[in-house]
C-alpha cells in the first residue's frame, strides 16, 4: 500500500517536472525570431509544415464536407428541412470539424516529422555542435518551427473549412439537386462571423500551439537513439491527438456551451 502511494507520488513529481521543463522550453524558444535570418528560417519551416501539409488537409476537407452533406441531406429530408443543409455543413465545419480534424492531420503529417527531424539532429550531435559554435539551438532550430506551426495550422484550418463547405455544395446542390440559394442563404443567416468563424480560429490557434509545442519538445527531449526517436514520434501523435480532443471539449464548453 505504502509503496503504491510512493509510486504515485513519484509519478506526480515526474509529471510536474516534465511539465515544468516543457514550460521553460516553450518560454525560451518563443522569444527567438527577431533577425532577418530568423525570418528566413521561419519561412522555410512554413514551407515544410504548411505548404507541404496543404494537399492532405484540403483533400480531407473536401471529403468531409461531401460526407457531411450526404449524411445531413438524408436526415434533413425526413423533416422536410433540406434547405438547412448549408447551415448544418458550415456550422459543423467551422465550429468543430475543421479545427479538430485539421489539427489531428497536422499532428500526423507535420508534428511527427518535426519530432523526428529535431530528434535526428540531437542524435547526430547537430544540436550539441550548434551549441558549441555558440548558437542557441532553441532559437535557431526550435523557435522557427514553433512559430511556423502556430501560423500554419490556422491557415490550413481556413482552407479545410472553405473546401469542406464547397464539397457540401457539390453534393447537396450539384448532385442531390438542392437549391443553391437556400444553401448559401441559410448559411449566411445562421453563421456569425465572430461567434462561429472567430471561435473556430481561436480553437485552431490553441491547437496549433499545443501540437507544435508537443512535437518540438518531444524531439528536443528524447533519448538520442533510433528507438528513442521512434518512441518520441509515436508519443507526439498520441499526446497531440489526446490534447486536441480534450482541449476541444473544454473550449467548446466555454465557447458554445454557455459556461463562463
Amino acid at each position, binding site marked *: 500500500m505504502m509503496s503504491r502511494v510512493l509510486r504515485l507520488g513519484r509519478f506526480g513529481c515526474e509529471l510536474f517536472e516534465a511539465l515544468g521543463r516543457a514550460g521553460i522550453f516553450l518560454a525560451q524558444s518563443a522569444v527567438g525570431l527577431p533577425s532577418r*535570418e530568423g525570418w528566413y528560417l521561419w519561412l522555410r519551416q512554413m514551407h515544410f509544415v504548411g505548404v507541404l501539409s496543404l494537399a492532405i488537409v484540403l483533400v480531407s476537407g473536401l471529403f468531409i464536407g461531401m460526407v457531411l452533406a450526404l449524411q445531413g441531406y438524408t436526415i434533413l429530408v425526413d423533416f422536410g428541412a433540406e434547405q438547412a443543409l448549408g447551415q448544418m455543413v458550415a456550422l459543423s465545419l467551422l465550429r468543430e470539424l475543421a479545427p479538430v480534424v485539421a489539427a489531428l492531420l497536422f499532428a500526423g503529417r507535420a508534428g511527427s516529422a518535426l519530432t523526428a527531424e529535431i530528434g*535526428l*539532429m540531437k542524435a*547526430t*550531435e*547537430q544540436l*550539441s*555542435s*550548434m*551549441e*558549441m*559554435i*555558440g*548558437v*542557441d539551438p532553441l532559437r535557431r532550430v526550435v523557435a522557427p518551427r514553433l512559430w511556423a506551426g502556430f501560423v500554419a495550422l490556422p491557415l490550413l484550418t481556413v482552407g479545410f473549412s472553405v473546401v469542406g463547405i464547397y464539397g457540401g455544395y457539390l453534393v447537396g446542390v450539384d448532385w442531390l439537386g438542392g437549391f443553391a440559394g437556400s444553401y448559401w442563404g441559410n448559411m449566411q443567416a445562421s453563421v456569425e462571423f465572430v461567434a462561429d468563424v472567430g471561435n473556430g480560429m481561436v480553437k485552431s490557434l490553441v491547437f496549433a500551439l499545443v501540437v507544435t509545442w508537443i512535437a518540438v519538445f518531444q524531439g528536443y527531449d528524447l533519448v538520442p537513439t533510433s528507438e528513442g526517436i521512434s518512441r518520441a514520434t509515436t508519443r507526439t501523435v498520441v499526446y497531440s491527438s489526446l490534447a486536441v480532443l480534450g482541449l476541444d471539449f473544454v473550449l467548446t464548453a466555454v465557447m458554445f456551451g454557455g459556461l463562463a
Partner: protein
Amino acid sequence: MSDTPFVAVEGLHFARGDKDIFRGVDLAIPRGGITAIMGPSGSGKTTLLKLVGGQLTPDAGRVLFDGRDVHRQSRKALFAMRRRMGMLFQSGALFSDLDVFENVAFPLRVHTDLPGAMVRDLVLMKLEAVGLRGARDMLPAELSGGMARRVALARAIALDPELILYDEPFVGQDPISMGVLVQLIKRLNQALGLTSVIVSHDIKETLTIADYVYVIADGQVMAHGTPQGLDVDRDPRVSQFVHGEPDGPVPFHYPAVDYFTDILSSGGGR
C-alpha cells in the same frame, strides 16, 4: 608555454543517475600543446568534453577556461566563451540541411557581419586546409565518414578558436583517412598555434601526436605523463591499456557468478 594552464579541471565530480562518472578529476591543459585524454570505452571521455564546453554542469568541482569558471558564466558570456572553442564531434555533426560550404560558413555568418566575398574567401581557405575545397557543393549525406570529419574540422576552425576539443577523431576510420586526420591535427596545431585536447582510445595514433597524456579510468585520473613516460609505466593497469592487452587488471569477463555453477544450475529460463 605559460605556467597557468589554459584549461584547468579541478576536483570534478559528475554523476548520471545513480552512476558516478567522475569522482574527483584534476587536469591541467597547457596552452599551445596537444593533450590527449585516454581511457577505456565508457569511462566518460565525451562527458568530460561536454563539461569543459559548458554543456553539462558538474556536481562538484570546477572547470577554468583561461582563468574563468565555465559554469559560473551567464548564458550570454558562456556563448561568447564558446566562440573561442571549437569542438569536433565524433560523428562530425554537420548540419544535414546545409551543404559543405554553408556548414563551414555557418559560424562566420552567425557571429560576424563579414561581406559575402570575404566569407567565401575564408571558407575556401579553411576547406583548402583540410583538402576539401573541391567538395564544397556536396551535402553531408554524400560525404564519407573521414571527409565529414574533415569538413567538421574546417567548421571548428572557421572562427580561429584558441582551443579545439576532439571527440574520438579516429574512430571508425580506414588507415588512410586516419593518417590524414593525424597529420591534419598535428599540422593545424602547429600552424594556428592552437591548444588541442584529444579524447580517444586509439592509443597508437594518439600517442604519436600528443605532447601530454592523461589516462582516465573508474572516474579518476589513473596516470599522466608524456607518451614516452607512459610507455614504460610499471602500473599494470596503465600498461594493460597502453599496450592493449586483452586481460589484466581490467578483466575480460563482465562480473558474473562462477561459470560451472551457472552452467549446472538448470532452473529453467535463462
